[in-house]
C-alpha cells in the first residue's frame, strides 16, 4: 500500500482522478490504433505510379489479419498500461493525514504524506466548460512542511473534498484541544 494507518486513524475518503481524464487518454490510444485500418479502407484497390513502377494497395486477407492483430495488440497493451497508471494514482484522506500516491511510470511510484495539522490553505481551481459541467478540477493544498504545496489534479467534486479536508482538520484541532484540556485538568 505504501503507508500504514496509525493507531486511531481511519480512512475518510479515497479518490482517483475523474473518469473524463482516462476516457480522453484512451480515446487518443484508440484513434491511433484505428488509423491504419481507416487508411487501408480508404486506399485499398487504388493504384499509384512511381517512375516505371505501378503499385496497387492490396493485402491478402491472412496478412491483413496478421498485421492488424499485431497492431491492435500493441495498442491494447498500451491502453491497459494507461488505465493502470490512472488507477494506481490515489488520494486518501484520513482523520489525521492526506496520502498522495502517484504512479509516474513503471517502477516509479511516489507516496507523499501530509499531516492535516500542517495544512494552511486549501484552494479549488476549475478550468473551462468541461471541468465546470462535469464537476472536476484541481485542489491546491498549502502546507507548512518541507514540500510547501501539492496539487491534486483532476479530482471529482473538488469542493466536497475541500470541505472534507477542512472538517477533518477542525476535528483534529478539537481533539488536540480536548486532550490538552484533560492533561491540564489532570495536573
Amino acid at each position, binding site marked *: 500500500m505504501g503507508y500504514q494507518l496509525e493507531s486511531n486513524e481511519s480512512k475518510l475518503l479515497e479518490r482517483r482522478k475523474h473518469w473524463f481524464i482516462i476516457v480522453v487518454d484512451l480515446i487518443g490510444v484508440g484513434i491511433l490504433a484505428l488509423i491504419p485500418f481507416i487508411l487501408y479502407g480508404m486506399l485499398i484497390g487504388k493504384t499509384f505510379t512511381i517512375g516505371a513502377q505501378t503499385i496497387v494497395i492490396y493485402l491478402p486477407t491472412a496478412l491483413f489479419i*496478421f498485421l492488424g*492483430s499485431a497492431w491492435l*495488440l500493441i495498442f*491494447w*497493451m498500451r491502453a491497459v498500461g494507461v488505465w*493502470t497508471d490512472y488507477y*494506481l494514482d490515489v488520494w486518501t484522506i484520513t482523520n489525521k493525514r492526506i496520502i498522495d500516491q502517484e504512479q509516474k511510470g*513503471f517502477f516509479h511510484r511516489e507516496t507523499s504524506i501530509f499531516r492535516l495539522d500542517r495544512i494552511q490553505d486549501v484552494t479549488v481551481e476549475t478550468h473551462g466548460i468541461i471541468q465546470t459541467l462535469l464537476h472536476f478540477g484541481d485542489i491546491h493544498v498549502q502546507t507548512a512542511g518541507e514540500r510547501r504545496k501539492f496539487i491534486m489534479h483532476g479530482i471529482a467534486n473538488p469542493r466536497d473534498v475541500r470541505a472534507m479536508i477542512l472538517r477533518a482538520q477542525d476535528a483534529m484541532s478539537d481533539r488536540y484541544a480536548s486532550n490538552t484540556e484533560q492533561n491540564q485538568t489532570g495536573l
Partner: protein
Amino acid sequence: MNPIPQYLLTAFDASYANVLWGSALFLVAVFIIYSLFLLYHWLRYGEKRPAIRFCMFLYFGVSFMLFGSLFIALSNIAF
C-alpha cells in the same frame, strides 16, 4: 512483387515466412515482459480490488484472442 518487401527480403537475406515468424515471436517476447511489469504493479499496489482483477481477466482474455487470430493468420500465410 511489390518493390518494398522485395527489397527488405533481399537486404536481410530472409524468407517471407521467417520475417513474419520472427516478428510474431518478438511480439510474444515483448508481451511477456510488459505483462510481467503490469502484473507486478497490479499485485503490489492493486490491493486485491475487484477492478484490478477484472482488468487482469480482460487484459489476458483479449490479448490471447488477438494472439490466436495472429497465429492462425500466420499459419495460413507461412506454414
